């Protein structure tokens, strides 16, 4: 997915950059505000152990992190000819369910685990990313403006992880039922990369509308309770549009 998206963006960049008649920007720079949709899903899973009744139980958790709305704002300035630099900030948050599968020790007998499954909802994932970009400003014709960008990103991911599964059990304890799941919030910042393009249509000298395509991706090892790490992917491809102000 990551590779194919990179290739797609590179091809887009190459095709747009080719026309000889293309004009360079005369403006200094621009700012943009976008609403977008992140199409990439970032499902992941986790396993943690717990001590109960003298034995070690386990809980496996399958997390869903579907795509969703991304808020993106940024801008760039032209520094030399068609080249410039910019920065953008994207923010993504949503709540998704997770499926838990627990093997809980029996209070009376060794090696007699009870298998318990249950779903928990509303686990929050928040991704805040700062994208530092090298930019190529391109003006194919008239009111059309195009900016290609790429560079490092810094992702801050905050994820609600299941930390404890609460079971209801009663004598003779041969079975147990899922009651609820307690969670903890963990977060970490990690470097990543981004590539993208911003296509603008100027409605006036300084105001326009535009569309954005951006792919940014990070792999992060979140530190969770009991010294375990949970590997998650963040970001992905998002597309959207919004307001442009050129100056």
């Amino acid at each position: 997915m990551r590779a194919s998206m990179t290739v797609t963006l590179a091809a887009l960049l190459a095709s747009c950059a080719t026309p000889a008649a293309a004009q360079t920007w005369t403006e200094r720079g621009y700012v943009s505000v976008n609403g977008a949709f992140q199409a990439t899903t970032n499902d992941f899973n986790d396993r943690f152990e717990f001590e109960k009744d003298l034995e070690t139980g386990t809980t496996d958790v399958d997390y869903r992190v579907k795509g969703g709305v991304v808020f993106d704002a940024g801008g760039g300035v032209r520094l030399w000819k068609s080249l410039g630099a910019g920065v953008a900030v994207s923010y993504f948050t949503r709540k998704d369910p997770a499926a838990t599968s627990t093997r809980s020790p029996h209070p009376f007998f060794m090696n007699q685990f009870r298998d318990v499954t249950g779903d928990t909802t509303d686990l929050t994932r928040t991704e805040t990313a700062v994208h530092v970009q090298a930019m190529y400003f391109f003006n194919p014709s008239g009111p059309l403006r195009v900016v290609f960008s790429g560079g490092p990103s810094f992702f801050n991911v905050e994820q609600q992880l299941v930390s404890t599964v609460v079971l209801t059990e009663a004598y003779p304890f041969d079975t147990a039922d899922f009651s609820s799941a307690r969670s903890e919030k963990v977060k970490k910042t990690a470097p990543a990369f981004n590539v993208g393009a911003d296509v603008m249509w100027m409605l006036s000298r300084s105001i326009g509308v535009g569309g954005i395509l951006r792919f940014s991706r990070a792999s992060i090892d979140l530190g969770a309770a009991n010294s375990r790490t949970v590997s998650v992917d963040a970001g992905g491809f998002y597309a959207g549009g919004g307001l442009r102000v050129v100056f």
Partner: protein
Amino acid sequence: MSLPPQVPGQDPLARGARTFRRRQATMACAGAVAAALWLSPAAAQQQARQGRLTIAPASRDQMRDASSVVDSMRRGGELRLRTTREDPQVRGRTHQRLDQFYRGVRVFGADVAQQLVGGEVVSVYGNVYDNIDVDPSPSVDAERARGIVEAIAGTEIGHQPELTVLPREDGAYTLTWRVRAVTGLDVREYFVDAQTGGVVFDYSDLQTQSAVGRGTGVLGDSKKISVSEGGGQFTATDRLRPPNVNTYDLRGDYTRAIRYLNQLIQLTTNDLAGDSDNTWTDTAVVDAHVYVGWTYDYYFKRHARRGLDNRDLPLVNIVHPARRQDFQTNFSIVPDFYLNAGYYGGGVMVYGDGLPVGVTLVGGQLVDYFSGALDVVAHELTHGVTQYSSNLIYRNESGALNEAFSDIMGTAVEFFFQQPGSGTLRADYLCGEDIVRPGGIRSMENPLAFGDPDHYSRRFTGTADNGGVHTNSGIANQAFYLAIEGGTNRTSGLAVQGVGASNREQIERVFYRAFTQLLPANATFSVARAATTQAARDLFGANSNAERAVTQAWSAVGVN
């Protein structure tokens, strides 16, 4: 012998007492008579059951009435302010707690909590008692009451006893001295009758919780043990199973054991087996406590039975009634407290310590702690099941059936929890093979190997052993074995088609049904055959494999 164990901690306030209507009619405090109307219908029903006045107004009018009566009782000195505290959560509110007094003596468990804002009552809840009529002058003084409790609890007590009116379960009231005794294992509240000096009520005030510990059994096996934790100490009280299961360690004090079994003394929490780190190493304690729990589990899971009386009768294990190291000097009690495990009625089991290392039976067998064999523990508990069901008379054929049922269920429990096989900690048709080694004490597969009859024609007809109850049990044991495993009886040569080991549950259920529900107390082998056949039909239908196996098995052992 029937020996009801001590049941500590029952709340006399929650038992019995008078009805709400009667209270309405006889309430002493005049203003409070109308106050019976404070009760919501639900609370009134509760009140009627528990025999005390519950204040729980359901409307503003009732609230007004209630608070005016509380005021009246305060003015009359029946309610006295204990504490006043500002509300830390809702600004401007105050909470008062008031205790009920009768002629200057506090009434146990009677108090009122009311919430006020600016002097106005916002809520009022409580329990009070009416129509109290006791002489508030004690004949027994506080010092004597303290001495009485010191003797019982086995500890010195420094604080001053408090004179208290104790509402009793029968609706009466007793003037008592309330004495709190803290021992290493318990915190106990005693109520000593201030007129007679007798302890009329006591309960544990120690806040404990269930815990799962690790224990090592008699055979060195590791297992989980369900215990209680409180005050930094672990005690052998199972709080996870429905019945109260306590294992007491009498530390070789056989005189005390005998006095307890004769109901001359009661055991206290000081007698409970304990451990400081929850890694239990007294193997006799571990196996007694764990195996009793497993046996309860078997009956619950297999037969939906709740303990010996099917009503979760408390279970009492006694281990170390005598110590192995005292074997030479305790020769008179060897049969009971060394070489035996016994069910003494009322849910009480005593497990002998076995023989010291180097001392064997005549045949060279060593005898380990009797609690170390699952089938032995289940055997003893099954005597309790019999006691509370068919109550088979312990002599002659009914006695042999009584013993056989204990062997049968003991073996069934073994197969329920252990892997089939030979050797220790394996399920087989030997009895007691884990503690009397090698070989055990009886065989269901081949009773003749231990000198027991495998056929009715070989039955013991003498008078010893109550008419051979431990001998003739071999006949029914062999029938049970053949009904499951099939095979040929060695005496009759008759072959039986058993239901097969994978269907052993069928035969277990058949025998359980027959022996607990169908048999009369003076049953004979012949009646047992008819009852088990009937049970097989009841459970699995006429001409079922189970019925065929049971009838063939009884025929093979010569019982028609």
